[in-house]
């Protein structure tokens, strides 16, 4: 058994190691070391917890068993999961953090002596408030992440679910959470605690159902943030520095990512959260544009264009992930490079279903990270490039965002693909993208549509090169 002061110092050390873990991610070279710091911080925190309890006779074996079972499941998932499924995995993991926070809060509520917070029915007021916040945010994280997971996995439709009075209902529930917390703190009634949890689960569920599939980057980042605030809430309850530091780090990390994602779509956070985007504005635009001429080609034409190019920019999007085309794409690029064609990749901030999704997939396909560029870095290069190869992206290339103030995506930063000498657009059909608007790029003189599955088309092009 070690003293409370000593263990507090060790918790501080693991908090610092977690900061270093995030710091390491500023560049791929230092990132692996950063991850190691994170693991070290976790080992220290867990070891110190055991040592500070010191009571190894009771339940110790059971704790180790649960630790090992969880660890084995986690390790198994980590090794088996395909990289295209990262968004689902992260959403699933968020739900676990949320649920763990809820369970710890329940345990603390039922047995406050264990945490020296008072006795049942007579918990210190401050602790009870912190506990309620931790439990409520944890519950919202849990049910929200479950919905996000189901939507990403395709078990639930990605289209927004909206109904009349939705916002009013949500607002009422949020107010009732505040009221319940107040009542709980004044009466200490355990019934109120359970009701608070149930209502929080419900609101997490209701908050995420109106948000559509392509807004998932914001949702995942937001839930990431919530899981941090939940951890911080529990950290205050347990008076544990490591948890408070980590909660704050994760909370602000998720908030920043949400901000970056919203900016990538030129939409306010509230606009995304209130949901329903893309479900309403379809009817007017899709009717009168159908007769416009479209040039479509086959793999042969595409290969011809690329062979005669000196530089090619590839614009991957969610469609590439769906078709698992990243390896085929890399092979195509290898062939191009053998012909001395300069190839780079342009990544839009909201390409894919989570922040950095495309970068991971390209890294998986052995694309060196110094060939992959962010929007601001590469956007001026389109004017000098010969071919833009758009694979599985749509809205993020739509020039309408720059020209038509009426368009729902007006003002969103887009890749200036149309400035290329020619544009190759791999897509299954002419259907509009997620925003429900037509892409003018399809009808441009220098655009060649390649109607096919992204993976198959890329393979065919490689054969023809």
């Amino acid at each position, binding site marked *: 058994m070690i003293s409370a002061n000593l263990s507090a110092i060790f918790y501080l050390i693991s908090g610092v190691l977690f900061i270093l873990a995030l710091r390491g991610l500023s560049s791929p070279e230092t*990132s692996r070391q950063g991850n190691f710091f994170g693991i070290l911080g976790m080992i220290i925190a867990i070891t110190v917890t055991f040592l500070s309890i010191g*009571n190894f006779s009771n339940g110790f074996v059971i704790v180790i068993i649960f630790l090992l079972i969880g660890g084995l499941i986690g390790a198994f998932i980590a090794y088996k999961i395909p990289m295209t499924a990262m968004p689902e*995995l992260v959403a699933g993991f968020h739900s676990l953090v949320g649920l763990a926070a809820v369970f710890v809060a329940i345990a603390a509520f039922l047995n406050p002596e*264990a945490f020296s917070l008072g006795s049942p029915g007579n918990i210190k007021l401050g602790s009870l408030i912190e506990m309620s916040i931790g439990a409520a945010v944890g519950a919202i994280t849990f049910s929200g992440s479950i919905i996000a997971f189901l939507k990403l996995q395709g078990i639930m439709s990605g289209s927004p679910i909206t109904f009349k009075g939705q916002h009013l209902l949500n607002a009422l529930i949020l107010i009732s959470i505040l009221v319940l917390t107040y009542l709980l703190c004044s009466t200490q009634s355990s019934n109120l605690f359970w009701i608070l949890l149930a209502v929080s689960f419900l609101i997490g569920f209701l908050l995420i159902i109106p948000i559509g599939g392509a807004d998932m980057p914001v949702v995942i980042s937001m839930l*990431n943030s919530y899981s941090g605030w939940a951890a911080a809430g529990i950290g205050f309850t347990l008076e544990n520095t490591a948890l408070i530091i980590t909660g704050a780090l994760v909370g*602000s*990390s998720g908030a920043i990512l949400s901000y970056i994602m919203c900016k990538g779509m030129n939409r306010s956070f509230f606009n995304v959260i209130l949901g329903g985007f893309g479900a309403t504005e379809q009817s007017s635009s899709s009717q009168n544009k159908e007769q416009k001429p479209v040039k479509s080609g086959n793999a042969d034409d595409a290969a011809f264009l690329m062979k005669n190019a000196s530089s090619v920019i590839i614009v991957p999007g969610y469609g590439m992930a769906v078709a698992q085309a990243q390896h085929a794409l890399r092979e195509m690029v290898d062939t191009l490079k053998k012909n001395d064609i300069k190839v780079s990749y342009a990544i839009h901030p909201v390409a894919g279903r989570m922040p950095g999704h495309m970068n991971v997939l390209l890294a998986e396909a052995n694309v060196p990270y110094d060939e992959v560029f962010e929007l601001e870095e590469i956007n001026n290069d389109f004017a000098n490039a010969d071919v833009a190869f758009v694979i599985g992206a749509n809205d993020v290339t739509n020039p309408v965002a720059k020209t038509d103030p009426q368009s729902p995506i007006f003002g969103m930063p887009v890749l200036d693909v149309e400035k290329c000498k020619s544009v190759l657009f791999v897509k299954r059909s002419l259907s509009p993208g997620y925003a429900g608007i037509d892409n003018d790029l399809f009808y441009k003189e220098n655009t060649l549509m390649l109607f096919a599955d992204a993976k198959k088309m890329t393979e065919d092009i490689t054969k023809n090169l």
Partner: protein
Amino acid sequence: MEIDPFIFRLSIFILSIFIGYYVVWSVTPSLHTPLMSVTNAISSVIIVGAIIAGLAGNSNTIFNISSVFGFLAIGLAAINIFGGFLVTQRMLAMYKKKKKDK
């Protein structure tokens, strides 16, 4: 008058938010997915609360309801810790620079 320890924790919390703000802005966008998985793993440090709940409970019965919730939380957090760090490791191992000798 003594300062309530809560104020110190609040100070740590607020300052950590600022640290998080600056540290996360310096994360390169290409590593945003690993950032999410590693933040996931570290937020599972909530396991310390779960261990306390599981172990420090009443010594007469191991399986009182509070420690059962503790055990379950340990399992959930452990999935996250191992899964989060390992999948981050797996991803980061894939980020390679262009080979110069090509």
